[in-house]
């Protein structure tokens, strides 16, 4: 599964919305992701993409939109 698909799947499960048409929508601003949902997202990402989420350096702005999340996951994968 490619990163984009994995991220959108996880977000769909968490928010109940297909975000493929809203790749630059800020998920914190529109209320789709609160801190509890963010944690679940990170847990799922760890499980499904094998990344280790950098929880103590977590910066919301870097994870705010579907596109940003994909970018972040790919850069963590290549580390």
């Amino acid at each position, binding site marked *: 599964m490619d990163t984009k698909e994995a991220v959108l799947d996880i977000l769909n499960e*968490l*928010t*109940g*919305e297909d975000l493929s048409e*809203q790749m630059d929508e800020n998920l914190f601003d*529109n*209320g*789709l992701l*609160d*801190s*509890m*949902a*963010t*944690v679940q997202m*990170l*847990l799922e990402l760890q499980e499904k993409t094998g990344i280790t*989420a950098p*929880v*103590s*350096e*977590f*910066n*919301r702005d870097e994870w705010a939109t579907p596109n940003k999340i994909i970018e972040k996951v790919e850069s963590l994968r290549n580390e």
Partner: protein
Amino acid sequence: MIKDVIKQIDQIATAEPDRVAYDYLGELNTYGDLKKRSDAYAAKIQEMNLPAKAPIMIWGGQTFEMVASFLGAVKAGHAYIPIASYSNSERLTMIQEVSEAPMVIAIDPLPIKMDQIQVLTPDEVVDGNYTINEKEFVDGNDNFYIIFTSGTTGKPKGVQISHDNLLSFVNWELTDFKLPEHPSFLAQAPYSFDLSVMSLYPALTAGGKLVVLPHEVTENIGKLFQTLPKLQFNVWVSTPSFAEMCFLDPTFDQAHHPELTTFLFCGEELSHKTAQMLKKKFPDAHIYNTYGPTETTVAVTQVEITDDILNKYDRLPIGVAKDDTHVTIDTSKGEKADQGEVVISGPSVSKGYLNNPEKTAAAFYQDDQNDYPSYRAGDLGFLDGDMLFYRGRIDFQVKFNGYRIELEEINFYLAKNPLVRYGVVAPKYNAQHKVQQLVAVVELADGVRDKYSDEELVKKLREDLSKDIMPYMLPQRFIFQDEMPISQNGKVDIKQVIKEVNA
């Protein structure tokens, strides 16, 4: 056994003024500070000539000043109403209307002007050598604090907790749990949420310490996981949801937190999965599941989750009632034999909702066999011997991330929106019986569909709702439906909507 909560805290302050009571991210305050500051608040409040016993609203976060003002209020003979400063201004005005509070203490700046009542700010409270007459202290059946919960018609309900209600709770927590001496507690829950009382008064009456993890920190994951590993305390108090969140931190285990010996959970169902995970991370810690509605003062049942309990039950028990309290099951309310509504009677049961005799009469009653009032919890449960088990709700109240929410309150505001013909908010449950998200199912008003895209509608509805309800009550997801299921009495069939959302 403690006899008086306020005097007990003052006695510790007099005997050991230098003992640390409050640790706010490294900023320390002692029992001596607490007495001095709360006396200053009490003296100032007494100067203001409020009507006797009128409640005082207190707006703020989780700072030391907040706790000092709580104690100042009760020392001056007034109950306090804690309101978290992340609430919206609507909630503040609504609580003022219901409570008729003649005064608000603005520990944090108020979001609106409140010209019609007195406003006190911390800089007007000057330290000095005040002696507060102990006869003025809140005691007995007088209200100590009033916590507002979600109501069904958009009007919040103020649960009145008296000094003696609180006393029964505190004595139980200090007796029936294996707490260390001078326990230090995690203080994570905002003070508007009665889970905070599980840390606050047991800590302060036992000469213990509160180690604060403020809301601003827990809301920001990066900050949370920078802060959490540095905090040291013996007793963890939180909702299960919050502990689950902390599992993400690889250093959240016994090796990194050897001082953490006890976990107290309340506010929502503790799942088997979460308890098991915690046991793995903290094999020697005592883990307690507790249960109780705000109306019965924080919690009234407890059970230690041991390996035996984990092996025996897939869905964990919620505990055995404290000695002074009776839990019974009203089986006329259940659908299965032996199951029914949980009814709680005892000295920690509230006298009812402030200025709301109708809702009070619907949930509380006094019978001849009992010295104390009884409260119908609305929870579905059953007893196995004296062990209580929880199986859900008999109405439309849910717990979401530990917050208690009346779905009908959200429905009320949703239906008021001109874009909406019918709107119902349904909880979507996961496999552990936990609410995972709130789903708003909406039938739009005529013509609305053609005017806006779905994204625009979601944005508008969310914006409008956020003016009236707390942020944690906002639905995560909106589904627009052409027709809602209608029940036999011609109303929207809420149960059917909930079924469909969870299908």
